[in-house]
């Protein structure tokens, strides 16, 4: 309906292979970016967006989006299920920590990069089984990663700089002398990183490397026959994916929690991120963000709901209830999406968009 595409013809392949071929999309996206970068801080300065919003919603949302993006590359695009996302995040976080700790004057961004690279390396090592095994055999392998990594980080004191509790406290984020202290500045920092990495991911999935992943996912035998090397392709997916998760982990530690222990990156976190991918939409960059937003906001709304019902009915519900209800809702949502819309929110969005493009005709 609002898509008025007549006259938006493509005279070059450059135009045709844009990320947003439709002008209206470009406008909307530009608006969203502008809002995220300028609008939100403005509102914050007007006191409309509270600190809480930054620390409890926006920043985690962005970080989880990045992690989900990482997992999506591996699971959604390359079709390799992984339950070890949190482990890769952990590697990223602790590696960055140690680089910062042990190398004098290490720039934070470089540390994050290196952290990501370490995660990538680990990813490759634990991706190796994927060459022999598939399906949930592989899932099992990644589970091993999950347990092993966390165990290592807990047991080997060196990683945590021998802190008795195993808890590390991340160094300050300082770039060119500016310290990202306030929750808002951290948000902007994360936003910048995530935007850039999302763009890079989008570019990858729309070029040869991305096609190789999807080929392996859809029909590995055929992919091999037309000349994609399974080994290379899969390991590349593991590496890139883990890199993204690693950076996400670093941000998780530095820009969100501040202090983390290895146990903070437990299996539950892995599952959470897997859920983001499933609900948001496997094989979709946008989906990673939608999924993250959904999973981040859901518990908040659930709590609001429960408190409301308590207030309304006067019965005070047992303390643990909200968390267990949360579990139940997550669980049933996963099942629901797997049954009803395996491609998740992203697909729903896409369908809606198609409807608008064809308006007033039916889809």
């Amino acid at each position, binding site marked *: 309906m609002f898509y008025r595409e007549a006259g938006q013809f493509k005279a070059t392949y450059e135009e045709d292979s844009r990320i947003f071929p439709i002008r209206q999309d470009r406008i909307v996206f530009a608006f969203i970016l502008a809002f995220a970068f300028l609008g939100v801080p403005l509102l914050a300065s007007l006191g409309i967006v509270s600190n809480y919003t930054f620390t409890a919603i926006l920043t985690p949302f962005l970080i989880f989006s990045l992690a989900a993006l990482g997992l999506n590359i591996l699971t959604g695009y390359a079709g390799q299920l992984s339950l070890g996302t949190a482990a890769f995040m952990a590697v990223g976080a602790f590696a960055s920590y140690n680089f910062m700790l042990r190398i004098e004057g290490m720039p934070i961004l470089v540390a994050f990069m290196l952290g990501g690279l370490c995660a990538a390396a680990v990813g490759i090592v634990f991706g190796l089984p994927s060459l022999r095994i598939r399906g*949930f055999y592989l899932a099992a392998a990644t589970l091993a990663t999950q347990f*092993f990594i966390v*165990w290592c980080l807990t047991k080997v004191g060196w990683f945590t700089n021998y802190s008795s509790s195993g808890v590390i406290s991340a160094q300050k984020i300082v770039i060119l002398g500016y310290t990202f202290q306030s929750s808002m500045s951290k948000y902007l920092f994360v936003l910048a990183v995530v935007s850039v990495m999302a763009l890079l991911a989008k570019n990858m999935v729309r070029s040869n490397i991305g096609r190789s992943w999807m080929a392996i996912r859809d029909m590995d035998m055929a992919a091999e026959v037309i000349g994609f090397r399974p080994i290379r392709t899969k390991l590349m997916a593991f590496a890139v994916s883990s890199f993204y998760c690693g950076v996400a982990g670093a941000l998780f530690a530095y820009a969100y929690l501040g202090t983390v222990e290895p146990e903070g990156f437990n299996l539950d976190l892995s599952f959470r991120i897997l859920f983001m991918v499933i609900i948001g939409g496997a094989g979709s960059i946008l989906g990673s963000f939608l999924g993250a937003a959904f999973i981040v906001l859901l518990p908040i709304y659930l709590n609001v709901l429960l408190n409301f019902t308590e207030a309304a009915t006067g019965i005070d519900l047992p303390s643990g209830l909200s968390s*267990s209800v949360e*579990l*139940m809702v997550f669980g*049933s949502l996963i*099942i629901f999406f797997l049954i009803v819309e395996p491609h998740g929110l992203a697909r729903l969005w896409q369908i809606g968009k198609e409807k608008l493009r064809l308006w007033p005709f039916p889809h």
Partner: protein
Amino acid sequence: MQFFFEVLIAGLLSGVMYSLVALGYVLIYKASGVFNFAQGAMVFFAALTAVGLHDLGLSLWVAVPLTMAVMVVLGLVTERIVLRPLVAQPEITLFMATIGLSFFIEGLAQAIWGANVRGLDLGIDDVPLEWLLDHANMAISQFDLIAAAIAAAMVAALAIFFSKTKIGRALRAVADDHQAALSVGIPLHHVWGVVWAVAGFVALVSGLLWGARNGVQFSLTFLALKALPVLILGGFTSVPGAIVGGLIIGASEKLAEVFLGPYVGGGIDGWFPYVLALLFLLVRPEGLFGEKIIRRI
């Protein structure tokens, strides 16, 4: 030396229980090609329900059968609501669905019974068996022995159930080829129903045993994670595989923990089985007793 045997036996004993849990998976996998990640959650749910009912004042003799009933219902419902709509979907999708299921069940259990740890007393105390202590000078918990005995009995029963009973045979047919099974008039959904019910039963028993040992708590759900390496080792479709695998994992895990652990700071039982299983996997992707996987174009 005999300390080694102590550990070994203890390991084997817990191994038997792994086998038991693993069997729960094999059952469902054979019948419907699902790796039921929710098995662990079911164990937790079963145990919690039984104990919960018990704490409400019901005698175990009432609580357990009651729970049994609940588990059967739960199994049937799962089959109906979760798996039937997903039939013929890729294994991985089903797998993820069961992850969702496990979350749901865990949530449900806690929503009903609360999140705090409950003790369970089956009237068997966890003390070394004098006889062995006197004669072989080995400290083997009599609880472990009895638990293992029960588990072994269950395993045997299931093995027989598989090979001898009509439904068991039907089940094998289904496992081999859904279409064929249908064509010879085996009602798939009944079979699946039964299987899920049995799985529920297995879950209950193992839940009670483990619960009695370590207290009924959330950590029970990790049994699922223990069973995974067992299955990789034994093959997802093989009953003997599950049994042998369970024993191997149980034993090796204990041994590793006791003899390897100290050098690396302990707590390796979390991942050791996996690494073991994976190393094995690289050698023999189809597991100990699993059928060879042939990929066609």
